[in-house]
C-alpha cells in the first residue's frame, strides 16, 4: 500500500546500474519515473515536465548536481529534491539546501530508506493533516497522549523506549524500516553498530506485542529491516 500513487519523479543519475535499479524499484513502489543521465537532459525534462519530486545525484558528468538544483530553482522548479551523494564531505551548499527543505542521502543506501525519505519530502510539501492522538493498526492501538498501547483491548506493558519504537513502526505500518532508520528516529543516532542491538529491541518488543495465539504483527526482514504488518 502506498500513500502517494502516481507521483511523478525525475531521477537524475549518471551511473547506468544505479539508474536502472532505482527506476525499477521506484516504479514498483508506485512512482512514475523519468530518468536522466546528465544535467542538461535533466534540466530540459524538469522545465518541460511537471514533477512532484526529484532525485539528483551530485556527481554528474556535465555539471555539479548542486548547480543543477540551484539552476532549476531559479527557473521556478519548486519540487523537493532528494540529493544522492557518494562523496565523503557534505558541501556547505548541500547543507543550505537541506535547510531549504530538501534531503540528502549517502550512497550506498537501503531502498527502504530512500522510499521513506521520498515520502517525508512529499509529506512536507502537502498540507499537514491533524496530528492524531491515537494510532490504530489492525487490533493494535496506541494512545499517543497517555503513552499506552493495547492489543485486542489488552494493555501492553511497554517501557517508554519500547513505546517510541512501536509508535515509529505503527506510523510506518506496512512499510519496511531499516536498522539505521530506527536508530536515527528512535534513538537519534546515526550509527552503524557491529552488533545486533536493534534486533534485540525488536525481539523484546515482539515478545510483548505478539502474544500467544495472536497474529504476529512485527516481522524482521533479514538484510532489509523490520515491518509492522497492517493486513
Amino acid at each position, binding site marked *: 500500500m502506498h500513500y502517494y500513487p502516481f507521483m511523478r519523479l525525475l531521477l537524475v543519475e549518471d551511473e547506468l546500474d544505479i539508474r536502472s535499479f532505482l527506476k525499477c*524499484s521506484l516504479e514498483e513502489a508506485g512512482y512514475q519515473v523519468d530518468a536522466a543521465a546528465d544535467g542538461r537532459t535533466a534540466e530540459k525534462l524538469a522545465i518541460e515536465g511537471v514533477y512532484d519530486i526529484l532525485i539528483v545525484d551530485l556527481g554528474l558528468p556535465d555539471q555539479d548536481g548542486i548547480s543543477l538544483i540551484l539552476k532549476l530553482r531559479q527557473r521556478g522548479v519548486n519540487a523537493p529534491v532528494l540529493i544522492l551523494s*557518494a562523496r*565523503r564531505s557534505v558541501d556547505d551548499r548541500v547543507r543550505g539546501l537541506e535547510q531549504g527543505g530538501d534531503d540528502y542521502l549517502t550512497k550506498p543506501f537501503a*531502498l527502504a530508506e530512500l522510499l521513506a525519505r521520498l515520502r517525508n519530502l512529499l509529506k512536507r510539501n502537502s498540507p499537514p493533516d491533524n496530528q492524531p492522538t491515537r494510532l490504530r493498526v489492525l487490533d493494535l492501538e496506541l494512545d499517543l497522549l497517555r503513552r499506552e498501547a493495547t492489543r485486542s483491548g489488552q494493555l501492553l506493558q511497554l517501557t517508554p523506549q519500547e513505546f517510541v519504537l512501536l509508535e515509529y513502526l505503527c506510523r510506518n505500518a506496512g512499510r519496511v524500516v531499516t536498522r539505521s532508520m530506527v536508530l536515527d528516529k528512535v534513538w537519534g543516532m*546515526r550509527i*552503524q553498530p557491529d552488533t545486533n542491538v536493534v534486533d534485540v529491541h525488536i525481539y523484546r518488543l515482539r515478545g510483548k506485542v505478539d502474544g500467544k495465539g495472536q497474529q504476529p504483527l512485527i516481522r524482521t526482514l533479514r538484510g532489509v529491516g523490520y515491518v509492522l504488518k497492517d493486513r
Partner: protein
Amino acid sequence: MSSRTAKPILHSAAWRISLWATLAFACGTMLVFVFLHRFVADDIQRRSDAWLSGEVEVLGDVAARTPKDAVYGRVVGEVAELAGKEVPNRLLSESSENDSVFFLQAGSDGSAKLWVGAGSGEPNLRSIRAASILPGRPTDIKVQGFDIPFRVASMRMEDGSLIYLGLSERDELRVLRNLRSRFILLWMLLVLLGFGIVFYTTRRMLSHVRQITEAASRIGHSDLNARVPTTQRSDEVGQLALTLNHMLDRIENSMHQLHTITDSLAHDLRSPLTAIRGKLEMSLSAVAQPEQSEPIVSAIEELDRLDDFLNKSLDVAEAKADALRLIRSEIDLDGLLRSMIDLYEPSMSERGLQIALRSAAPLKIFADASLIHRMIANLFDNELKHLPAACTVTIKLQTEDSAAVLILQDDGPGFDPQVLPHMFERRVKGKDSQGHGLGLAFIDAVARAHGGNVSACNRITGGAQVAVTLPLT
C-alpha cells in the same frame, strides 16, 4: 586584571630584552663617565698643583727679598692672603674667613716662624712634619680638625727654612661631587628613557609575533582557511608571517589533495556498492523461499560492513593526517550515554552483562555529533563483543581541567598484554577478535580530531579500562 596582565609582561621577551639592553646601556654610560670623571679630576689636580707651585715660588721669592725685620711677617702674610683669594675653583659666596688656604714658614729646626690661615697652625705643622714633603712635588696631607685633606706645596729657602702653601681640596671635591650628582641624575633619566624606548619598540615588534602565534594556534586541525596577519614591512617579523602563510598554503594544499583522494576513493567504491546493494535488494524481494534468501541477506550484511569499514578507514586515515573534517555542535554527553545505554542494555543483559553509569549531571561538549556517536557505539560494541558473561561494565563521566573524561571499565579478562602497547594502531586486534581491527584506531582518531586523547590499560583489580578525554570546547 592587573595581576593577570602583569605576569605575562614580566615573562615576556620584550621585558627581558629591555632589561638586558638597559643593563648594557647603563654599564656603558657608567664606564664612560668613570673615565671622564678621572680625566676631570686629574685636570683639576694638575691645575691646582700648577697654581700651588707658582704661588709657593712667588711667596718664596717675596720671602727671600723681604728683609727679616718687624714687617716681614706682615708683608709675607698679606701676599699669602692675597694669593689665597685667587684660589682656583673657589666658591665666591663663601664666608669671609678663608680656611681653604694656609701659608706656613717653618725654620730649619722645624718650628713655625710664620703662619697665615685659619686656626693656630699647630696641627698643620704636625701633619706636614709627619709627611715628608719634597719641594716641587705637591702632596696630600690630612690635618687634624679638617675633614678634607690639603694639597701642600713646599719650597726651601736659602736660609734653610721651608715655606709651605696648603690648599684645601674642598672646592675641587665639591666640583667633582657636583659633576657626579648631576651625572647620576641625568644617567638615571637616560637609563629610564632608554628602557622605555627599548621596551616600547620591542613590545610593539613582538606584539606582532604574538598576534602571529595566536592566529597560528587558532588555525586548528582541519580549519586551514585562516591566515596569520601580515604587515607591510619586510622585516624579520613580516618575513615570519609570510613564511608561515606560505607553509599554511602548502599544508592546505596537501590537505585538499588528501580530501580529494579520500573523496574520490569513497566515490569510486560507493558507486558500485550502491549498484550491488540495489540489485541484491531487488533480487531479495523476488525470492519466495526463505532459505534462498540467506546468501543474499548475508551478502547485504557483508556489504554494509564493508561500507562501514571504508568509512572508518578513511576517517582514521584523515584523522592521522589531522585532516578529519568536523561539523561541530553542542552535545550532552550525559544524555548521549543514557540513550546509548538504553540502546545497548537489552543486548548486554541478553549476554549476561551488567551496565552501570556514574554521571552526575549533563556535560556539554562542542563536537561532531556523528563522530562522537559512532565512537561511543564503538566502545559499547567492543564491550559487547569481547566480555564474557556475568561481567559488569561501569561507565564514568566526569569533568577534569576543562575536559570531559569518559571512562569505561569492566571486570573481564582485560586486554591482551601483547596487544596493549599497540592498541590504537590500525589493524591491531586480539587473537580472538572478529572485527577488522579498526575500532580502537577509530576511537583514537575521533578523540584526536577533537583535540583529546584515548588511553587504555588493564586495571590492577582485573579488567580493562579505556579513558577518552575530550575538550569541552
